[in-house]
């Protein structure tokens, strides 16, 4: 495993989409390589921060308010 291969597998590693052997190889590489470790940490941080958007509050009339003019039934 080298840096280029490890970085290409970050996404699958994060989603647990790798087979166990490759997952172990990537994890070993990340543990031994400061640059990849730092980049994988940033990669995970970015996804966690992105997930803040899950918590964006919709305006009060959205979705819940049956009387809203924009929420007509078919």
């Amino acid at each position, binding site marked *: 495993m080298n840096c280029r291969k490890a970085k290409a597998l*970050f996404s699958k590693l994060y989603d647990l989409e790798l087979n166990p052997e490759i997952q172990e190889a990537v994890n070993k590489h990340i543990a031994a390589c400061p640059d990849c470790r730092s980049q994988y940490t940033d990669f995970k941080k970015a996804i*966690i921060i*992105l997930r803040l958007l899950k918590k*964006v509050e919709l305006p009060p009339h*959205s979705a819940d308010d049956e009387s809203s003019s924009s929420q007509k*039934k*078919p």
Partner: protein
Amino acid sequence: MNADEVSLIEEAKKGSRAAFNKLFSNEQKSVINLMLQLTGDIASAEDLAQEAMIIAYKKIMGFHLESSFRTWLSKIAINLFRAHYREKRKHETLCLERVQIPSTEDRPERVIIKRELQWCILHNLQHHLPKKYRLALVLRDLHNFSYQEISQIGGWNLAQTKIYIHRARKKFKERFINGKCKAFADDYTCVCEGILDL
């Protein structure tokens, strides 16, 4: 797909509006959120969700349970988004250069920083990711669709889907690390309860 959902779909296909409304209301918030995350605009998001509902109602007879109702409805909404939304919006209306990060001395409440951070992320999705990457990222990381479901919704094969998700995350990470999102995030994490604890 659970038995209740299958039952509601079968009733809706027989013409029950109540069954369809129940099906839609279960997913309505999720669809509006999805459209908001893709368009960045609540009015457009509500309009697209409304339009998706109408199309779904008309096409429910052609839905043969190949996927969950949520996946099927999301695909309809995504197709509307693709058809109606202009790729090249005027950038200046949301341009980050006009945003001032609050100074340390005059830092507003944490909630304000969080909202600015959310806005910053939304901006990056809107203006700094190609549409297919934005779509892949939102479906995977904000709506937890599986790779297989994203393939169905996006109309891509599985290999393309995996590539788009990886590239979208990589590009978003680069924007995040090099852009103002990181500054907002650092500001936010100073006072949060450990959002970045990994």
